[in-house]
């Protein structure tokens, strides 16, 4: 008897087991990337009823999705699936763009659901792109809440700010990759080779915003030939976009933040005018020290770098001697030092944005003094002295000795 009950129980267990949250993969659309924008004041959007009469704030959310099996549909009718962005269909890509407006981003998502048979899944999102206009007009602190609150979102996604409209980025044609988002993600992993853009994850981004700190966010731009360029960085001050740093300035800023992992430096050769020494960075360590000088804060940036000489732009230089190496070391140090100084000055005087975390450092190491100057830090910041010291060691000279 007992045995019979057990058998029945096991059969029932096998048959009745299920999962409330089950969604078949072919009913899912994996969101790979999302772009946030403001609604432009154009007639096209008004006629579609996207702009509400009461003039509330509205955002546009564009998502790039990937659908399983779409790629393997053999018939020709798959072309009709290229949605909103108008980029689908030709080669039966498994990607699709969806776009909608909303007063909140969640509202925009739910509106998308009215136009799609697929369930959006955010667990594999790779990138989040913020439009330039949105970042300039709104406090990012106020609009990022959805990405922090939603439990489904993969917190390792990358945050970037687009030059121009963020939704347009997904119209790019990444030559070697199926979707724009994966292209961006894979490219941002190359940061070790160039140090020219800011590889910023969502959690770090939110953490700095939450703190009220200024920060740098990687920039992305759509080129004329539908290519993509990820370089430079956006300066965010008080939650708003203040301006841009170019590639080399971004690299200099990363030197201060101790984020440089590689890259190259082209330094003018001090001995022979018009020639250059190119060095590749193997490793860089930097320390930012906050000190008190006559009761006022001052900062010292101390960079220690190891690099190798990879190119000397003069055929007449046949060998790299010890003396020459010392010269090269000095030249590279001087070049980096100048770069860092220029960037810091630009951030201090032009943008007045403390993106390098000077105030934060001071708060942590001189807390008592910080409480006194906290209120007037905004005024003090452009004037604080910053001393930069770079030490370079050349470890390799390549196969030409």
């Amino acid at each position: 008897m007992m045995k019979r009950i057990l058998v029945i129980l096991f059969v029932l267990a096998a048959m009745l087991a299920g999962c409330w949250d089950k969604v078949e993969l072919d009913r899912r659309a994996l969101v790979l990337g999302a772009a946030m924008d403001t609604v432009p004041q154009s007639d096209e959007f008004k006629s579609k009823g996207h702009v509400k009469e009461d003039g509330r704030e509205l955002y546009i959310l564009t998502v790039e999705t990937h659908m399983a099996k779409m790629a393997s549909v053999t018939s020709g009718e798959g072309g009709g699936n290229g949605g909103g962005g108008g980029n689908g269909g030709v080669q039966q890509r498994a990607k699709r763009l969806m776009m909608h407006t909303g007063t909140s981003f969640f509202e925009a998502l739910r509106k998308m659901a009215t136009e799609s048979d697929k369930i959006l899944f955010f667990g594999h999102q790779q990138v989040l792109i913020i439009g330039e206009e949105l970042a300039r007009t709104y406090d990012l602190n106020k609009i990022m809440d959805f990405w922090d609150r939603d439990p489904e979102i993969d917190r390792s996604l990358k945050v970037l700010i687009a030059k121009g409209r963020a939704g347009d980025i997904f119209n790019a044609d990444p030559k070697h990759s199926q979707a724009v988002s994966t292209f961006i993600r894979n490219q941002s992993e190359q940061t070790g080779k160039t140090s020219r853009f800011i590889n910023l994850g969502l959690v770090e981004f939110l953490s700095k915003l939450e703190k009220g700190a200024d920060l740098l966010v990687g920039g992305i731009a759509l080129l004329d030939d539908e290519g993509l360029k990820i370089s430079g960085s956006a300066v965010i001050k008080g939650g708003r976009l203040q301006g841009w740093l170019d590639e080399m300035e971004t690299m200099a800023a990363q030197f201060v933040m101790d984020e440089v992992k590689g890259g190259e430096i082209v330094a003018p050769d001090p001995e022979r005018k018009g020639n250059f020494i190119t060095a590749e960075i193997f490793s860089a360590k930097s320390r930012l020290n906050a000190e008190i000088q006559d009761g006022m804060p001052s900062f010292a940036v101390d960079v220690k770098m190891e690099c190798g000489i990879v190119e000397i732009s003069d055929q007449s230089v046949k060998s790299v001697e010890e003396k020459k190496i010392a010269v090269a070391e000095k030249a590279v140090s001087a070049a980096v030092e100048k770069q860092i100084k220029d960037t810091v000055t630009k951030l201090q005087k032009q943008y007045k944005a403390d993106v390098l975390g000077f105030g934060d450092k001071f708060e942590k190491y001189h807390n008592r003094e910080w409480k006194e100057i906290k209120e007037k830090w905004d005024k003090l910041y452009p004037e604080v002295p910053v001393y930069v010291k770079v030490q370079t060691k050349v470890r390799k000279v390549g196969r030409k000795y």
Partner: protein
Amino acid sequence: MFRDNDKVSAREATFFIIASLIEVGTLNFSRIATREVGSDAWLALIFSNLFVLPAIFIMVKLGQRFYRHGFGEYSRIIAGTAIGWILSAALVVYWLFVSARVLRAVSNVIMLTLLDKTPMEVIGFSFLLVAAYLCWYGIEPLCRISVLICIVVMPTIIIMCLSVINEFKIDNLLPFLTEGPLPVLKFGFKEIGELTEMTFFLFLIPFIDKSGKAMKVALCALLIAFLFIFFVLVLTIGVMGVDIVKFQLLPPITLLESAEFIGIFIERLGVVFTGLWIIMIFPTICGLMFAAALVLSQMFGFKSHRPFIIPLVPLIYIISAIPKGMVETQDFFEFLIPYGIVMLLFVPLLLYIIAIVRGVKDT
């Protein structure tokens, strides 16, 4: 095989306490602590573990004095039938509420991160039924499963955490003691109430085959659990920074989700991390249930704890379902912290003093 054997070795008991100490509260701790004391959270954790030492000392001494009886029996021997009965009842109620809190917290975590449409009844009851099954066979299987869980799950969690260690910044743990040591000490004392599972020593000692080793068991377990919790806490704050930890519901899970595992082909390891952590919660709930059932059986003079297990299942579930929302849950179970301090520190102290004065002990 293990049924009614009811003797565990000192090592098994140690693992049982470790596995019970690490529960869902550990996930919340970094948020609560950074809200109260900012970047000194790690110091508060050290203090709360130091403050609990006298309580452990008294509980173990008391247990060793009555090495053949559990709490339900010796409280009556010491303080008389009526008071002993009331104290035992208070302890049982405490354990029931703690297990309800743990159950509610774990269902919240599961609903938030893994199964968002599954109703709480299903998660709660399936959790409790498994726990009840484990409790049915007594303390020995419970301890052995704890050993298994500890040696499989804890190293895995540590290895997963190590993958984010290169983003650890010591600056995030600064500034140090900005408001002076007083708030940290205060919070550290309050957090003794979170080390609930140390009350297991009130019933555990008769089951350890060499009850003289109980002190060693307690200290070893506390130390290992402390190191583990400390590691997770420091890593969470050190990688993410105090400001974001304050606003995350489950900071360590956010930490693991934000990690980039270069060279690993699996994404979303945060989910795996959550799953592993949920396994760690089983010994806690089982232990609390077993403890409550055992003390109840001692109170009513039953030989076995078994008749009380099944009635406890709906009871725990009902308590856990009282608070309506996630925010309310936090407030509803808030009273457990002072309650815990009383049960952990004052009740054993009182009983111990009376026992010495009256000179009663097991021979």
